């Protein structure tokens, strides 16, 4: 049996320690999270998945109607902007809820895996306005329910979700010989076919060719989204006939959705895929330079269990190296912010009081009387508030939370709470944009950079110190600096850190130093 450390379990495999946290006693406690967590409802999308589906459908109908209309340019522009604002507002609220989800959840390992897999199957909410609504749905529909089962199911759910089909342009890709391509100028788009092999399964340089990429894209043709932003297989768009990918034949006449499913299953089962993903998991959790024997043990388990992910994670946790040499990784900005909020004891019960003292109700993720009234007012008036962060949320300086706020007020302001840049937003979504990891907006289909070198840089350090100072000044009123170290780092706090923090001239400085310490930034 491998050694076990509750502190490493919380820091390396979770979002850090919080006051009064119930510690994991063994690796089974971590794995049990994967069973328990899905039973709890997620804080996003706001109002639940059903509501978000409805929002997506409303947007689809709205945009569709505008396509047909084209009568009155002025009116159409206003209507389009209103739809866009609605999508943006929904996204702003879901983004905050996404950070709070990770902060509040007692299932840190499950949360970390959700973030890992979202990043592995990256989509970007800024691809289009509908994506502002569909991306949060993607995480709850495709990623979270499948992250502890068979990789095959996860792959299928992620790759064929409308969010992925839109993000990697699959929705428009048409077989050059298909019926749909005959009467209109339409054709193939290789984007998803390529990333499916290069990023999602086998990994770059694992032996496939450009011909395989193109063929995979041909097999995928027909997989598209319908007028409600739901996945749909349209045989008319599918490339007819037999298509060979990596030496295996798919398709025939007629083509069916099963061809894609079989290809995805085959890709999921390949050894290169097991190696690529196990290596990535170890790189994410343990070290930029993944110890090969941990990877090997996981790949063996992958083969033995036919890609059962919970068992693959168990193989990682069973390896002694999983519990050694803490501090080899840097927390990514999201993890830094979330673990910081946890260290201050921010919970579902107290967050509003501590982080949203001005009553930032227009962006509160949870139903409250005022928020519900605001929603009602929105529905009945058809009016809309501008997004809280116009354009670039990162413009906002940390120390001036309300400086750059502009809002277009609805026709009857009395009915709606005034949007303010709350502390909650300053310390979460706005900070993450400044730190280079905006919520649900990875820089490319490959996700965010993972290595220490990417996140241990001068401007990153500068942003984190600013964050620590702001958090210390606003959330730290009842927290002694040494206590914060004790709570958040336990035995990982080094003696010299404890000493320097203890010498700080005041509480805010001490807390800032504690949150800026190497061991709080590393894991």
């Amino acid at each position, binding site marked *: 049996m491998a050694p076990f450390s509750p502190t490493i379990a919380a820091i390396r495999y979770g979002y850090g320690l919080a006051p009064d946290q119930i510690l994991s006693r063994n690796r089974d406690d971590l794995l049990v999270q994967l069973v328990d967590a899905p039973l709890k409802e997620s804080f996003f999308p706001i109002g639940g998945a059903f509501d978000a589906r409805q929002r997506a459908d409303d947007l689809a109908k709205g945009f569709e109607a505008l396509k047909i209309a084209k009568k009155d340019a002025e009116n159409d522009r206003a209507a389009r902007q209103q739809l866009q604002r609605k999508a943006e507002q929904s996204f702003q609220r879901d983004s905050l809820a996404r950070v709070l989800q990770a902060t509040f959840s007692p299932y840190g390992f499950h949360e970390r895996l959700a973030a890992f897999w979202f990043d592995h199957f990256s989509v970007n909410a800024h691809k289009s306005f509908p994506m502002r609504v569909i991306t949060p749905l993607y995480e709850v529909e495709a990623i979270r329910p499948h992250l502890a089962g068979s990789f095959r199911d996860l792959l299928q759910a992620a790759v064929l979700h409308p969010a992925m089909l839109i993000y990697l342009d699959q929705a428009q890709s*048409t077989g050059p010989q298909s019926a749909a391509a005959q009467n209109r100028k339409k*054709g193939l788009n290789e984007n998803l076919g390529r990333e499916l092999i290069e990023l999602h399964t086998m990994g770059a340089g694992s032996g496939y060719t450009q011909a395989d990429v193109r063929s995979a894209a041909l097999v995928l043709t027909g997989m598209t989204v319908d007028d409600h932003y739901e996945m749909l297989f349209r045989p008319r768009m599918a490339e007819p006939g037999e298509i060979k990918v990596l030496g295996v034949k798919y398709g025939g006449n007629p083509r069916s959705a099963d061809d894609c499913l079989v290809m995805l299953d085959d890709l999921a089962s390949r050894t290169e895929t097991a190696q690529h993903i196990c290596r990535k998991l170890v790189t994410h959790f343990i070290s930029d330079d993944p110890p090969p024997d941990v990877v090997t043990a996981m790949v063996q388990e992958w083969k033995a269990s036919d890609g059962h992910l919970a068992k693959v994670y168990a193989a990682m946790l069973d390896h002694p190296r999983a519990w050694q040499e803490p501090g080899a990784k840097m927390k990514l900005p999201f993890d830094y912010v979330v673990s910081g909020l946890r260290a201050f004891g921010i919970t579902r019960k107290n967050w509003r009081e501590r982080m949203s003292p001005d009553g930032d109700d227009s962006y509160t993720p949870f139903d409250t009387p005022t928020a519900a009234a605001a929603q009602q007012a929105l529905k009945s008036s058809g009016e809309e508030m501008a997004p809280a962060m116009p354009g670039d949320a*990162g413009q906002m300086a940390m120390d001036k939370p309300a400086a750059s706020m502009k809002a277009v007020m609805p026709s009857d302001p009395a009915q709606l709470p005034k949007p303010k840049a709350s502390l909650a937003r300053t310390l979460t979504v706005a900070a993450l*944009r400044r730190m280079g990891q905006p919520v649900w907006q990875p820089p490319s289909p490959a996700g965010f950079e993972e290595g220490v070198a990417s996140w241990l*840089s*001068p401007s990153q350090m500068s942003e984190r110190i600013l964050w620590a100072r702001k958090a210390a000044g606003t959330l730290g009123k009842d927290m002694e600096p040494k206590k914060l170290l004790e709570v958040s780092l336990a035995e990982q706090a080094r003696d010299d850190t404890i000493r320097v923090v203890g010498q700080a001239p005041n509480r805010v400085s001490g807390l800032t130093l504690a949150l800026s310490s190497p061991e709080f930034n590393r894991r």
Partner: protein
Amino acid sequence: MAFSQDMILSRRSFLMTACCAAAVPVFSPVSFAAMPGENRFVTIVLRGAMDGLDLVQPYGDPAFAQFRPTLALKPDDGLIDLDGHFGLNPAADALMPMWQAKELAFVHAVSTPYRDQRSHFDGQDMLESGSQAVHGERTGWLNRALSAIPRSEDRKAIDINTSMELILSGPNEADVWASSSNMTMAADEVGFFKRLYANDAEFSRVLAEALRTDMAAEQLFQDEKRGQGIRDIAKLAGGMLREDYRIASFSVDGWDTHAGQKAQFARTVKDLTIALTTLKDALGPDVWKTTMVLAMTEFGRTVRENGTGGTDHGTGGVAILAGGGIQGGRVLGKWPELGEGKLLDDRDLMPTGDVREVAAAMLYRQFDVGSEALTNGIFPGLSFDRSSAYLKI
């Protein structure tokens, strides 16, 4: 030299007074005065595979319009004629004053040695590491070049980003700073942080760099609002180069135009034009004369339009050169033509030049980096000699 002696002296005295209270003097008067050369070099990485055929369109090639029924333009549709064969995408019209002043040139049909796989990530790795093969080098070529630049310790390099990009990563010292960063730390607080990081070598190094760079940025921006947009990035790069930095690098993203290329490409080209014009303004006329900008991308895009109004990953593309002292106003490179049988793998613009040779020529031109260093340590496997066509610029 572009700087007049008076100018240097007045800036020196200004900095002496402005900096004396700082914990870490950024503008050391000695290193500033001892600067061996005034030349500057800026690399801009165009991430996502910039479609060179859309930016610099070969409208004189008869096959072009057939391959691109909706994307190809003619001078009659707004394409800006450059030389009777190539035309500039109208979205880049803000660059025309530079072109007319011969401060802008394009190199067509160039690529890295990367072939066949067409992955953005490996492609950018190759472009930034300067290697002959995927994962051939672990450090950036611009960083390795610092070792070969005579007295490079006096010439500082900076990467404008939230994290260091591969092109400037490596054993030699280079600073990285984001346009929005502003640390503001009192002298006593600096002392605490130094002690806090004393036993973590990496944190100590990064802190020292942060303090140094923050001071430099502070001088440039003072109380101005700082954003993360391309204008802010270019302004910071230009400002740093006007002072004692000699090398800068940043990125312009958003070139991966698989669908609906027309609108997306125009938007991203706009960013590029803002980057170049802002940089020129921020450098000021004298320093601009000593500056060479090289903008390059991981690979080009398919010659044929795809089925979704966009283009897919290709090979040959365009590199951009700009600077106040160049003999531009020309499209360089050997045009491979587009007709049947002329394309690479029947899909891509056939590369006729190595973008690393363009980069090597610029290092030679700006900093006297010798061909031995260029073909061994900096661009392993590159054949480069002093007769390179790209030096005649």
